[in-house]
Protein backbone atom coordinates (compact mmCIF):
# COMPACT_ATOMS: atom_id res chain seq x y z
CA UNK A 1 0.00 0.00 0.00
CA UNK A 2 1.21 3.47 -0.82
CA UNK A 3 2.41 5.47 2.15
CA UNK A 4 0.42 8.52 3.14
CA UNK A 5 0.85 11.52 5.39
CA UNK A 6 -1.48 13.99 7.00
CA UNK A 7 -1.05 17.33 5.25
CA UNK A 8 -2.78 20.26 6.97
CA UNK A 9 -5.21 17.73 8.38
CA UNK A 10 -5.94 16.01 5.06
CA UNK A 11 -4.67 12.60 3.93
CA UNK A 12 -2.08 12.88 1.20
CA UNK A 13 -0.51 9.95 -0.63
CA UNK A 14 3.27 10.17 -1.01
CA UNK A 15 5.82 8.25 -3.09
CA UNK A 16 8.19 5.82 -1.45
CA UNK A 17 11.16 7.83 -0.20
CA UNK A 18 9.65 11.14 -1.27
CA UNK A 19 11.30 14.18 0.30
CA UNK A 20 9.68 17.31 1.68
CA UNK A 21 10.98 19.22 -1.34
CA UNK A 22 9.63 16.56 -3.68
CA UNK A 23 6.15 16.69 -2.20
CA UNK A 24 6.06 20.51 -2.25
CA UNK A 25 7.14 20.46 -5.89
CA UNK A 26 4.54 17.86 -6.82
CA UNK A 27 1.79 19.92 -5.17
CA UNK A 28 2.89 23.03 -7.03
CA UNK A 29 4.20 24.61 -3.85
CA UNK A 30 7.89 24.37 -4.70
CA UNK A 31 8.44 27.98 -5.60
CA UNK A 32 6.43 29.26 -2.70
CA UNK A 33 7.67 30.43 0.65
CA UNK A 34 6.51 27.20 2.24
CA UNK A 35 7.18 26.72 5.95
CA UNK A 36 7.03 23.09 7.01
CA UNK A 37 6.41 21.41 10.33
CA UNK A 38 6.80 17.63 10.54
CA UNK A 39 5.40 15.76 13.52
CA UNK A 40 5.37 18.95 15.55
CA UNK A 41 8.94 19.98 14.73
CA UNK A 42 9.91 22.71 12.27
CA UNK A 43 11.90 21.52 9.25
CA UNK A 44 14.89 23.63 8.21
CA UNK A 45 14.48 24.95 4.67
CA UNK A 46 17.96 23.73 3.72
CA UNK A 47 16.96 20.18 4.54
CA UNK A 48 13.71 20.07 2.52
CA UNK A 49 15.52 18.10 -0.23
CA UNK A 50 16.89 15.58 2.29
CA UNK A 51 14.08 14.88 4.74
CA UNK A 52 12.22 11.76 3.58
CA UNK A 53 8.57 11.42 4.46
CA UNK A 54 7.36 8.36 6.27
CA UNK A 55 3.95 6.75 6.37
CA UNK A 56 1.81 8.44 9.02
CA UNK A 57 3.83 11.67 9.21
CA UNK A 58 1.87 14.71 10.25
CA UNK A 59 2.79 17.71 8.12
CA UNK A 60 1.76 21.31 8.48
CA UNK A 61 2.61 23.58 5.57
CA UNK A 62 2.25 27.30 6.17
CA UNK A 63 3.27 30.50 4.43
CA UNK A 64 3.56 34.22 5.13
CA UNK A 65 0.30 36.07 4.54
CA UNK A 66 -0.90 39.65 4.95
CA UNK A 67 -1.00 40.70 8.58
CA UNK A 68 -0.26 43.50 11.00
Amino acid at each position, binding site marked *: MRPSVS*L*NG*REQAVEDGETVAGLLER*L*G*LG*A*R*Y*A*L*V*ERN*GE*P*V*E*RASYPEVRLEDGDRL*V*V*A*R*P*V*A*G*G
Partner: protein
Amino acid sequence: MSSNDPLVIAGREFGSRLLTGTGKYDTFETMRDALTASGSEIVTVAVRRIDLDARDDDITTFLPENVLLLPNTSGCETADEAVQTARLARAGGLPDWVKLEVIPDPRYLLPDPVETLRAAATLVEDGFTVLPYVLPDPVLQKKLEEVGCATVMPLAAPIGSGRGLKLRDTIRIMVEQAEVPLVVDAGLGAPSHASEAMELGADAVLVNTAIARAGDPVAMARAFRLAVEAGRTAFHAGVMEEGVQAAASSPLTGAVHES
Protein backbone atom coordinates in the same frame (compact mmCIF):
# COMPACT_ATOMS: atom_id res chain seq x y z
CA MET B 1 19.93 66.26 16.06
CA SER B 2 18.10 65.71 12.80
CA SER B 3 14.75 64.00 12.45
CA ASN B 4 16.60 61.32 10.56
CA ASP B 5 18.59 59.94 13.46
CA PRO B 6 18.47 56.22 12.88
CA LEU B 7 16.28 53.83 14.81
CA VAL B 8 18.53 51.13 16.26
CA ILE B 9 16.97 47.80 17.17
CA ALA B 10 19.22 44.98 18.34
CA GLY B 11 22.22 46.75 16.84
CA ARG B 12 20.65 47.14 13.41
CA GLU B 13 20.02 50.64 12.04
CA PHE B 14 16.84 51.73 10.27
CA GLY B 15 16.30 55.07 8.54
CA SER B 16 12.54 55.00 9.04
CA ARG B 17 10.68 55.11 12.34
CA LEU B 18 7.45 53.96 10.75
CA LEU B 19 6.85 50.21 10.86
CA THR B 20 3.97 48.94 8.76
CA GLY B 21 1.69 45.95 8.58
CA THR B 22 0.56 44.25 5.38
CA GLY B 23 -3.00 43.35 6.40
CA LYS B 24 -6.32 44.59 5.05
CA TYR B 25 -5.22 46.02 1.69
CA ASP B 26 -7.64 45.53 -1.20
CA THR B 27 -4.84 44.30 -3.47
CA PHE B 28 -1.17 43.37 -3.13
CA GLU B 29 -0.35 46.04 -5.73
CA THR B 30 -1.87 48.77 -3.56
CA MET B 31 -0.05 47.33 -0.57
CA ARG B 32 3.27 47.41 -2.38
CA ASP B 33 2.78 51.03 -3.46
CA ALA B 34 1.67 52.10 0.02
CA LEU B 35 4.60 50.37 1.70
CA THR B 36 6.96 52.09 -0.71
CA ALA B 37 5.34 55.48 -0.04
CA SER B 38 5.56 54.90 3.71
CA GLY B 39 9.35 54.55 3.54
CA SER B 40 8.97 51.75 6.05
CA GLU B 41 11.94 49.41 6.45
CA ILE B 42 10.26 46.90 8.77
CA VAL B 43 7.13 45.19 7.48
CA THR B 44 5.05 42.64 9.35
CA VAL B 45 3.48 39.49 7.96
CA ALA B 46 1.37 36.80 9.55
CA VAL B 47 1.94 33.05 9.21
CA ARG B 48 -0.93 30.79 8.28
CA ARG B 49 -1.52 27.28 6.91
CA ILE B 50 -1.55 27.06 3.15
CA ASP B 51 -5.04 26.47 1.75
CA LEU B 52 -4.40 23.49 -0.53
CA ASP B 53 -7.50 24.28 -2.59
CA ALA B 54 -6.64 27.90 -3.26
CA ARG B 55 -3.57 29.23 -5.03
CA ASP B 56 -3.22 32.79 -3.80
CA ASP B 57 -0.30 35.01 -4.70
CA ASP B 58 2.90 34.92 -2.68
CA ILE B 59 2.90 38.14 -0.63
CA THR B 60 6.68 38.19 -0.39
CA THR B 61 6.94 38.92 -4.10
CA PHE B 62 5.01 42.18 -3.57
CA LEU B 63 7.18 43.67 -0.86
CA PRO B 64 9.58 46.53 -1.58
CA GLU B 65 13.23 45.49 -1.74
CA ASN B 66 15.43 45.73 1.32
CA VAL B 67 12.66 45.75 3.89
CA LEU B 68 13.04 43.53 6.92
CA LEU B 69 10.21 41.02 6.96
CA LEU B 70 8.89 40.73 10.51
CA PRO B 71 6.75 37.62 11.02
CA ASN B 72 4.17 37.95 13.76
CA THR B 73 2.62 35.29 15.94
CA SER B 74 -0.95 36.47 15.46
CA GLY B 75 -3.49 33.74 15.95
CA CYS B 76 -1.52 32.32 18.88
CA GLU B 77 -3.37 32.18 22.19
CA THR B 78 -0.61 30.71 24.35
CA ALA B 79 3.14 31.09 24.78
CA ASP B 80 3.72 27.59 23.43
CA GLU B 81 1.82 28.30 20.22
CA ALA B 82 3.73 31.54 19.71
CA VAL B 83 7.10 29.85 20.23
CA GLN B 84 6.14 27.10 17.79
CA THR B 85 5.03 29.60 15.15
CA ALA B 86 8.21 31.66 15.47
CA ARG B 87 10.36 28.55 15.15
CA LEU B 88 8.41 27.39 12.09
CA ALA B 89 8.89 30.77 10.42
CA ARG B 90 12.62 30.85 11.13
CA ALA B 91 13.21 27.27 10.02
CA GLY B 92 11.38 28.01 6.78
CA GLY B 93 13.67 30.88 5.90
CA LEU B 94 11.99 33.94 7.42
CA PRO B 95 14.13 36.21 9.60
CA ASP B 96 14.86 35.33 13.22
CA TRP B 97 13.05 38.50 14.25
CA VAL B 98 9.53 38.07 15.58
CA LYS B 99 6.68 40.37 16.49
CA LEU B 100 5.43 38.44 19.49
CA GLU B 101 1.65 38.50 19.95
CA VAL B 102 -0.17 36.24 22.35
CA ILE B 103 -3.86 37.12 22.19
CA PRO B 104 -6.44 34.84 23.77
CA ASP B 105 -9.27 37.38 23.65
CA PRO B 106 -11.07 37.67 20.29
CA ARG B 107 -13.28 40.62 21.17
CA TYR B 108 -10.81 43.31 22.20
CA LEU B 109 -7.70 41.53 20.90
CA LEU B 110 -5.81 42.41 24.06
CA PRO B 111 -2.49 40.60 24.60
CA ASP B 112 -1.89 38.23 27.51
CA PRO B 113 1.01 39.72 29.53
CA VAL B 114 1.92 36.54 31.40
CA GLU B 115 2.09 34.31 28.33
CA THR B 116 3.83 37.05 26.35
CA LEU B 117 6.58 37.33 28.95
CA ARG B 118 6.96 33.56 29.08
CA ALA B 119 7.21 33.27 25.29
CA ALA B 120 9.61 36.21 25.11
CA ALA B 121 12.03 34.60 27.56
CA THR B 122 12.00 31.31 25.61
CA LEU B 123 12.46 32.98 22.23
CA VAL B 124 15.31 35.24 23.37
CA GLU B 125 17.01 32.18 24.83
CA ASP B 126 16.51 30.49 21.46
CA GLY B 127 18.31 33.29 19.61
CA PHE B 128 15.37 35.32 18.35
CA THR B 129 15.19 39.10 18.23
CA VAL B 130 11.90 39.60 20.03
CA LEU B 131 9.54 42.55 19.61
CA PRO B 132 6.61 41.95 21.96
CA TYR B 133 3.17 43.53 21.56
CA VAL B 134 1.74 44.45 24.95
CA LEU B 135 -0.71 46.59 26.87
CA PRO B 136 0.86 49.81 28.10
CA ASP B 137 2.37 48.60 31.38
CA PRO B 138 5.64 50.03 32.74
CA VAL B 139 6.18 47.07 35.08
CA LEU B 140 5.78 44.53 32.29
CA GLN B 141 8.06 46.69 30.14
CA LYS B 142 10.90 46.29 32.66
CA LYS B 143 10.38 42.53 32.86
CA LEU B 144 10.45 42.22 29.07
CA GLU B 145 13.64 44.27 28.96
CA GLU B 146 15.18 42.06 31.63
CA VAL B 147 14.60 38.90 29.62
CA GLY B 148 16.26 40.52 26.62
CA CYS B 149 13.53 41.83 24.33
CA ALA B 150 14.77 44.11 21.54
CA THR B 151 11.83 46.51 21.79
CA VAL B 152 8.66 46.87 23.76
CA MET B 153 5.54 47.64 21.71
CA PRO B 154 2.61 48.97 23.72
CA LEU B 155 -0.73 49.46 22.03
CA ALA B 156 -2.20 52.96 21.75
CA ALA B 157 -5.74 51.56 21.64
CA PRO B 158 -7.24 48.19 20.61
CA ILE B 159 -6.05 46.85 17.23
CA GLY B 160 -7.89 48.37 14.31
CA SER B 161 -9.87 50.78 16.51
CA GLY B 162 -8.13 53.92 15.27
CA ARG B 163 -8.72 55.69 18.57
CA GLY B 164 -5.24 57.09 19.16
CA LEU B 165 -3.19 57.32 22.35
CA LYS B 166 -5.72 56.32 24.98
CA LEU B 167 -3.20 55.72 27.76
CA ARG B 168 -0.97 58.66 27.04
CA ASP B 169 0.28 59.14 30.60
CA THR B 170 1.22 55.47 30.94
CA ILE B 171 3.03 55.52 27.64
CA ARG B 172 4.86 58.65 28.79
CA ILE B 173 6.17 56.70 31.80
CA MET B 174 7.27 53.90 29.49
CA VAL B 175 9.09 56.41 27.27
CA GLU B 176 10.89 57.87 30.27
CA GLN B 177 12.16 54.55 31.57
CA ALA B 178 12.73 52.74 28.27
CA GLU B 179 16.07 51.00 27.86
CA VAL B 180 15.18 49.46 24.51
CA PRO B 181 13.22 51.20 21.74
CA LEU B 182 9.57 51.83 22.53
CA VAL B 183 7.30 51.27 19.54
CA VAL B 184 3.67 52.35 19.79
CA ASP B 185 1.76 49.64 17.97
CA ALA B 186 -1.95 49.42 17.17
CA GLY B 187 -4.84 51.80 17.51
CA LEU B 188 -3.29 54.79 15.73
CA GLY B 189 -6.03 56.02 13.40
CA ALA B 190 -4.65 59.25 11.97
CA PRO B 191 -1.25 60.75 11.21
CA SER B 192 -1.81 63.19 14.11
CA HIS B 193 -1.93 60.20 16.48
CA ALA B 194 1.42 59.02 15.16
CA SER B 195 2.86 62.51 15.54
CA GLU B 196 1.58 62.67 19.10
CA ALA B 197 3.31 59.40 19.99
CA MET B 198 6.56 60.57 18.41
CA GLU B 199 6.37 64.02 20.10
CA LEU B 200 6.00 62.18 23.39
CA GLY B 201 9.30 60.42 22.68
CA ALA B 202 8.26 57.06 21.32
CA ASP B 203 11.10 55.63 19.20
CA ALA B 204 8.80 54.42 16.43
CA VAL B 205 5.21 53.54 15.60
CA LEU B 206 3.64 50.59 13.81
CA VAL B 207 0.63 51.30 11.59
CA ASN B 208 -1.52 49.01 9.49
CA THR B 209 -5.29 49.56 9.34
CA ALA B 210 -5.16 53.36 9.23
CA ILE B 211 -3.14 53.16 6.01
CA ALA B 212 -4.65 50.04 4.43
CA ARG B 213 -8.28 51.11 4.88
CA ALA B 214 -7.80 54.78 3.94
CA GLY B 215 -9.61 56.07 0.87
CA ASP B 216 -6.19 56.44 -0.76
CA PRO B 217 -3.76 54.14 1.03
CA VAL B 218 -0.71 55.36 -0.90
CA ALA B 219 -1.36 59.01 0.02
CA MET B 220 -2.11 58.03 3.61
CA ALA B 221 1.15 56.09 3.81
CA ARG B 222 2.97 59.25 2.79
CA ALA B 223 0.99 61.27 5.36
CA PHE B 224 2.04 58.88 8.12
CA ARG B 225 5.64 59.06 6.97
CA LEU B 226 5.58 62.85 7.21
CA ALA B 227 3.76 62.76 10.56
CA VAL B 228 6.35 60.43 12.06
CA GLU B 229 9.16 62.65 10.82
CA ALA B 230 7.38 65.77 12.11
CA GLY B 231 6.79 64.18 15.50
CA ARG B 232 10.39 63.04 15.81
CA THR B 233 11.69 66.48 14.80
CA ALA B 234 9.38 68.12 17.37
CA PHE B 235 10.56 65.73 20.08
CA HIS B 236 14.17 66.72 19.46
CA ALA B 237 13.23 70.39 19.17
CA GLY B 238 11.64 70.25 22.62
CA VAL B 239 7.87 70.55 22.86
CA MET B 240 6.83 73.48 25.11
CA GLU B 241 5.39 72.87 28.56
CA GLU B 242 1.62 73.11 28.87
CA GLY B 243 0.30 75.97 31.03
CA VAL B 244 -3.04 76.74 32.60
CA GLN B 245 -3.03 80.52 32.11
CA ALA B 246 -2.60 82.49 28.93
CA ALA B 247 0.83 83.86 28.07
CA ALA B 248 0.72 86.61 25.48
CA SER B 249 2.81 86.20 22.37
CA SER B 250 2.66 89.93 21.55
CA PRO B 251 3.79 92.87 23.76
CA LEU B 252 1.21 93.89 26.37
CA THR B 253 2.26 97.56 26.34
CA GLY B 254 2.57 100.30 23.72
CA ALA B 255 -0.67 99.56 21.89
CA VAL B 256 -1.26 102.08 19.09
CA HIS B 257 -4.44 103.48 20.57
CA GLU B 258 -3.53 103.00 24.21
CA SER B 259 -6.14 104.55 26.54
